Every structure is written in structure tokens, then in C-alpha cells.
């Protein structure tokens, strides 16, 4: 658990972070969102003490972080940044092995961990491990950056716009991977972004920041339904709020299940159980259909989702 109590950071006369209180529960993904210069990165960098705070208290599992040795503190906090910061003179494997090396893991354990992470992030241990950062694409480099952050098996993960510089498709892919990895590992994560869609997708709770203050701290659904101010309302965009709400829930939540899974008819177009309701609506609009079959991960037809249900109960 991470607790920020009355934390303030000044740069000269400028107040970057203004007396904020924030509690991040264990295993939660807290996304700090806001426009550039709102203090979200500053907040993140105070948690691993890359920046000292001007006043206030930051506690990790009840302990004031200023009492800990900064290097030991950081070894237990994975850190991934937008520009990756991979060490250009080291191979991918050595980059990922940095924290295990600092923790003095035996080299076999480290190598196993590196291979495990390469696989987890969709990289090939046989070919990619020996590449140098300049030989990687932007998406691959960012995967390595995330793998490096996870390598020491830290309790806390700090991510500063890790997908900000990627193209839309790669970003979408990596967000999916993040969700998958997070389901497996359940790390307490603080994630900074300026992209509200990314925030809605990844967060268990979102903290909206503006001018160094936290305007609203709540679940994605609550932020969409009850924005606390005009600023938040603007940020989430009034026009497609309904679609964003639909995007938060999966087809599995709303569908009617068959008593027995069926073999799907050949060439039938439907949606996956894990797809969002937004995807289901889009398919309906495109096909002009009032009802869609729903498939399980295994490819069996397990139920249907109806347009009426979607419009009434979806958002």
C-alpha cells in the first residue's frame, strides 16, 4: 500500500504538486491522468525518491520512504519510462537482468528470470535476448523496458507514460498485455498517462490531476458517471461517454448464456466473451443485427447478446 499525505513539491516559486492526499491499495492499478505539467510525473518520481518532496509524508506499507535507503527502496519498485532508457551498450538480456544483478541473484536464477520475462512479454528468448536496444522496434524496446521493471519481482510498479511514444496499434497491443500481466502478477501499480482512454482501460482507480491537485480519485465507472468538475467532464469527453462506459464492461457480463455450449455454425459472425460491450455494439451497427452469438475462448458458442439489453443495461 502506498499512502501520500499532504505531499507538496515546489520548484522555486512554482508549486508542481500541491498538498495531495492519495492512497493506493495493494494490488491496485492507480492511473494518474492529466494534461502535461499537471504534476503527475512529479508525483510518481517522488514515490521512488528520484525527486525529494518539499513537505508531506509518503508511506509504503506504513513506512516513511525517507527512512529507507533510496537504492534499496528503488530495487523494490519497478520503473518504466516513456523513452525506455534502455542501456544502449548492453544486450536485451543484460538490460533485463540489471535489477537481479543488483540484488545479487545467482546467475542461473537471473537467466531463468530473464527468459521467463521475455516470454511473458511476447519476445523470443532465443533471438531477442542477444540483440542490442538499437536493433529493436519502438514496441519491442518498450516491452523490454517493462520486462526490466518487472525483473526483480518488485512489489510496486511505477510507470511513467510507458506507451506514450508508440503508434496506436502497438500501444493497444501493449495495453492488452499489461492487463493480462497484471491479472497474473497483481502488482501495486502507479501508472502515469495523459490519455484518458488508456486510463479508463487499465485503471482500477483513476486520479485526475490538474495544476498540482487531485480533482477526482475514483473508479473508471464513477469518473464517467459522476465527473466531479467541468475539467473532468471535458477530459472524458461528453460526446462518447456512453461508448466509454460500454468499453468498461465485457460481453460476458451482459450476455444470455445457453444451458449447454453449442458448436458454432460455420461462418457465423459474433463476438468473444472477453470483448467489450463497445465492440459488440459496433459489430451490431456494422451488421445491422439485433442479436449476436457469443463465443468462448475455446471457440464454442456459449450464448447471445441482444441489442435491447445492450442499450438498456449497458451503460
Amino acid at each position, binding site marked *: 500500500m502506498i499512502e501520500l499525505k499532504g505531499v507538496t513539491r515546489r520548484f522555486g516559486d512554482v508549486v508542481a504538486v500541491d498538498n495531495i492526499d492519495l492512497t493506493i491499495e495493494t494490488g491496485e492499478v492507480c492511473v494518474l491522468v492529466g494534461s502535461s505539467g499537471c504534476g503527475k510525473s512529479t508525483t510518481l518520481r517522488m514515490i*521512488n525518491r*528520484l525527486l525529494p518532496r518539499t513537505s508531506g509524508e509518503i508511506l509504503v506499507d506504513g513506512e516513511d520512504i525517507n527512512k529507507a535507503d533510496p*537504492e534499496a527502496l*528503488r530495487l523494490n519498485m519497478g520503473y518504466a519510462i516513456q523513452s525506455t*532508457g*534502455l542501456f*544502449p*551498450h548492453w544486450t536485451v538480456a543484460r538490460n533485463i537482468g540489471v535489477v537481479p544483478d543488483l540484488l545479487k541473484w545467482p546467475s542461473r536464477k537471473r537467466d531463468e528470470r530473464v527468459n521467463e520475462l521475455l516470454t511473458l512479454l511476447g519476445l523470443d528468448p532465443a533471438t531477442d535476448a542477444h540483440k542490442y536496444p538499437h536493433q529493436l522496434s519502438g514496441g519491442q524496446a518498450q516491452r523490454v523496458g517493462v520486462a526490466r521493471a518487472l525483473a526483480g519481482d518488485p512489489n510496486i510498479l*511505477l510507470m511513467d507514460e510507458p506507451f506514450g511514444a508508440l503508434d496506436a496499434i502497438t500501444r493497444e497491443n501493449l495495453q492488452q498485455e499489461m492487463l493480462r500481466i497484471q491479472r497474473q502478477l497483481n502488482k501495486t501499480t502507479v501508472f502515469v498517462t495523459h490519455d484518458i482512454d488508456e486510463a479508463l482501460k487499465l485503471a482500477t482507480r483513476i486520479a485526475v490531476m490538474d495544476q498540482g491537485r487531485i480533482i477526482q480519485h475514483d473508479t473508471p465507472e464513477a469518473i464517467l458517471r459522476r465527473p466531479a468538475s467541468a475539467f473532468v467532464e471535458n477530459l472524458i469527453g461528453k460526446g462518447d461517454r456512453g461508448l466509454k462506459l460500454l468499453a468498461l464492461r465485457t460481453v460476458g457480463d451482459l450476455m444470455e448464456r445457453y444451458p449447454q455450449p453449442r458448436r458454432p455454425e460455420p461462418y457465423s459472425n459474433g463476438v468473444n466473451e472477453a470483448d467489450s460491450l463497445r465492440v459488440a455494439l459496433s459489430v451490431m451497427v456494422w451488421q445491422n443485427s439485433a442479436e449476436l452469438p457469443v463465443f468462448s475462448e475455446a471457440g464454442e458458442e456459449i450464448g447471445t447478446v441482444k441489442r435491447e439489453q445492450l442499450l438498456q443495461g449497458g451503460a
Partner: protein
Amino acid sequence: MRLWLAPAAWIALLCALAALLPVMTPLFSWVEPGTDNLIYTRDSFYFLLQSHIWLVAVSATIGTLVAVSAGIFVTRPAGSDFLPLVSQIASIGQTVPPVAVLALAVPAMGFGEKPTLFALVLYGLLPILRNTLAGLGGINPAVLEAAKGMGMSSAHVLFKVELPLAGRVILAGIRTSVTINIATAAIGSTIGARTLGDPVIAGLVNGNTAYVLQGAILIGLLALATDSLFEATERAWARAFSI
């Protein structure tokens, strides 16, 4: 291994010529007909070469140690106040010609090897310092941020990240410094140091082109051999760290 072929060839040629020049009388009688003193004999060429290399090597070692430590110091948080001053000195110092440094060292330290060494160290410092600052300053800040954020100590960041990444630029600075100092050391002969400049000065004073030529050939070869040695080292460094 092929990397070291060129420097080895230059060094072999240099040693061969230092040994063979004394028996090349016919060649030099063609350059300077009508004299009996065709070969410089006051000291052996080997002795002069050795003394020349020693002067340059000692000054380069001292210069590198001082300049790299100073460069590291002013790029740490503790020394950052001195960074503007030191980088200014590094760039202004380059505009003073080496001969001037040599001339100024004499009244302070007398004649001989000491003032030469002093001038060489002082002048050789500057390119190394400038390149150390450029090399350390040229590292992508995100890499340093990540290194610190991973939990590396400052010493770890310096030795595992900063110096390997800046190494090639620093090495280029040492290369420039040494090449300049090979030439400057020759002028040290005018203030009493024993170097390959001796035959050149003696030749100029006595109007003997053969002497001048013998000194000049060896100085030139020494510079070429050293430069190609650095070239190979820089490549080996780049290969080792893949940059």
C-alpha cells in the same frame, strides 16, 4: 586481431627506420651533397625515440588522470558549480598555442625536461577535459534516469553506464592530446629536453637538411603509429560495448 595489424606495421616501420637511418648515408648524401656529417650522431636515434615517447607517455598519463577526474567531478551534483568555469577553461585553453606554454614554462622552471613535461601536461589536459565533458554530457538523460530509478548507486551508474558510454569520446580526446603532444615534445628540444626534435634543431642551426629530415621522418612516423594505435583501440572499445 586484424584491428591491430595497421598499428603493428607502423611501429615495425618506425623501429626499423630508427635502426637503419645511420646506414642510409648514400640517400642523405643525395639530399645534402658536399658534407661529411650526413647522419646525426650526437645521440642514437633509439635513445631519442625512447626519451620522446617517455615524455609524451608520462604527460599523457598525468593529463588523462587529472582531466578525466576533473571532468567526472564537475558533472557530479557536488561539483556542478564548477562546470561552467571548467568548460570555459577547456575551450579557451585550446586557443593558446603550445609553443607559448613552453616559453612561459621556462622562466618558472628553468631549462630541461621538467618544464617540457609541465607544458605537455598542461596543454594535453585540455582536449581530454573537453571530450570528457562532451562524452559525459552527451549521454541520453533517460538512460541515467532509468539507471538511478532501477536502484543503481552513483558509483555503479558512473562505472557501469556513464564511463563505458562516454569512453569512446574520451578516448578520442586522449588521441588528440597525444598527437598534439608528440609534435609539441619535439619543440621541447629548444629548451633542453632530449627528444626527436634534437636533430631537427641541430639541422636548422647548422643548415644541415639531412639532420632535419632524419628527425622529421621519425617524429612523423611516431605520430602516425600512435594515431593508428588509438584508432584500433577506439574500434576495439566500440566493439566491446557495441556502440
